[in-house]
């Protein structure tokens, strides 16, 4: 029963990771791609880690999975912010159909 639950959780996680990868291919520019990859990969990895925790129980492996989960939750959005900011500063353009860019206006 516990194995079953953990496999279902890991399956959901892998499915979300897959969605993130599809987004990475289909969306048009860097910022949109960052959106898809950050969100889906974060939640997907959280699900996989919870799956590991359920599978192995409250022992050395499970606690390391829990710690990984917390650190990913803190670092993934920070890394996304750093990438987006760095890309914008070094002149990566938004998609041509984007409606507005207040950040560009602010820089002038």
């Amino acid at each position, binding site marked *: 029963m516990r194995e079953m639950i953990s496999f279902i959780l890991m399956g959901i996680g892998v499915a979300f990771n897959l969605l*993130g990868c599809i987004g990475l291919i289909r*969306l048009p520019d860097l910022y949109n791609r960052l959106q898809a990859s*950050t969100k889906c990969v974060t939640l997907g990895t959280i699900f996989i880690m919870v799956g590991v925790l359920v599978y192995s129980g409250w022992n050395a492996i499970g606690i390391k999975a829990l710690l990984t989960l917390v650190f990913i939750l803190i670092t993934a959005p920070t890394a996304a912010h750093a990438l987006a900011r760095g890309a914008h500063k070094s002149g990566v353009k938004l998609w041509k159909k984007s409606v507005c860019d207040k950040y560009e206006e602010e820089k002038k």
Partner: protein
Amino acid sequence: MKRFTLFLALFIIWLLLVYNRPYDTVAFKQNLFIGFIVSLFIGIYLGDLIPERVYKFYSPVRIFNFLIYLPVFFWYVILANLDVAYRVLHPRLPIRPGIVKVKTKIKSDTGRVALANSITLTPGTLSVDMVGDTIFVHWIYVRSEDVEEATKIIVKRFERYLMKIFD
């Protein structure tokens, strides 16, 4: 206080990392000893990196508010993922991206960082940069270019929780 907080945080993380049963082996005691020494030194020398007014972290009311915030946050994270799934799998890609400007009323730096990270992980938004109380947000489907309107949609859903935790 700052130094003690850093020491405590590092030591707890170390304890979780080396957690292993049974407790009374020599290796576990060695781990415990080394971890204590190292986190003590780092705590003393790098304690200044911890934000001012760190006593806020010990307030039970704030911890309680944080526990209330967690389910709200996870709910929005799951919504965000379903939103991305919808946009990515839709044949015509229903996106209308742009970078908008929002204002926040949160004063403390830690609170602003938490807000920016929450914005990144929630539906359709990605915080690009923060200048003072202004956050530039990349929005995958821009519903309003106006600062007030965008603030109402993006920031307000977290602000009242985060203000209770960090301000």
